[in-house]
């Protein structure tokens, strides 16, 4: 007997049959609301950062829910939501092939340039 082991990390939404998406976003019960991923931009930040997920009946409700669940302590000034099923993720099984080759390519890092003093914020 052989088992295929899928190691999933928080935020992984694999497209494979056994991926997280199949567990959390497939609606087994018609009465259950779909899952949404929430991205918040903080006052200091320029980009929206993933903060978590929640259930909502539609996009408008997802934004309201996100406001109530994730911005109660002044965390944000802008909210994005996207239905979790629309997120396509890299397959965790392919992590080695995808990411390890970059390990020994130090020359890709911009550390070999001399920056003039006039250039700030780099």
């Amino acid at each position, binding site marked *: 007997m052989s088992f295929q082991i899928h190691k999933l990390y928080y935020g992984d939404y694999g497209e494979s049959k056994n991926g997280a998406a199949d567990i959390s976003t497939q609606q087994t019960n018609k009465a259950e609301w779909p899952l949404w991923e929430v991205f918040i931009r903080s006052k200091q930040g320029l980009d929206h950062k993933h903060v978590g997920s*929640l*259930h*909502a*009946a539609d996009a*408008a409700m997802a934004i*309201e*829910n996100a406001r*109530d*669940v994730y911005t109660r302590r002044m965390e944000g000034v802008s909210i994005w939501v996207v239905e979790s099923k629309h997120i396509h993720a890299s397959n965790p099984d392919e992590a080695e092939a995808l990411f390890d080759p970059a390990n020994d390519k130090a020359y890709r890092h911009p550390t070999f340039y001399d920056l003039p003093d006039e250039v700030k914020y780099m």
Partner: protein
Amino acid sequence: MTTTKNEIDFLLHLADNALIIGHRNSEWCGHGPILEQDIAITNIALDYIGQARNLYQHTAELINQQTDKIELTQTGKVISLPVTEDSLAYLRDVVEFKNLLITEIPNGDWAHTTLRLFLLSQFQMELFTQLLKHEDPQVAAIAEKSIKEINYHVKWSQDWVLRLGDGTEESKRRMQQAIDTIWAYTGELFIQPDYARDACLNYAAIETTWNKKVAAIFEEADLEIPAKTFIQKGGATGMHTEHLGYILAEMQYLQRAYPNSEW
């Protein structure tokens, strides 16, 4: 500065409205239909408790500045000075509370709860907009802060009226039932209490705008406004339904049983 009894009573009326609707909404904490909505209505409850605190604190300050003692209670009991936000919330009895009846009626189901909040917050939106011009700058400031919150309450509750009214057969039935039950308590919103006469408020204008906005949402959700019904009134002058007593019993028990206890 002298403050008239009317001004004090009007502030208590506003504060009591906020406290009681806040308490009602807080009863949903841990019982919401879904986690996200449980948090939403609990947030709204906290908004109202915050408004109540601001108003009670200011009222207490005004009372304590008086040289002539103000009769706070109709039952002859005297609240010892200095008055605090806590003594105003916890040591007055049913007949001294001036909240509108619509704030104290039981939550019922989700349709009743969201509809009540929609009808009330739509009214508060108009009332507080007028209070922005109140001669007491502190009251105007509290109104300004509260309006941001009320704006969200209107939006949130209105969405639910639309969702349920324009949803399934069952959700529509429940929302229409909520309207038929609660409608009798909406007439009281527009009866200007005697103690509010000095406050330069135009209740007729509030009623006109309220009617227009509520009718528009009901039409969009395909819900019906009941034909003229009997108006339940009296809350603003201390004549309450039996429900307020139970709310106060729960809310005030600790302070009554263990006076001045803190935790």
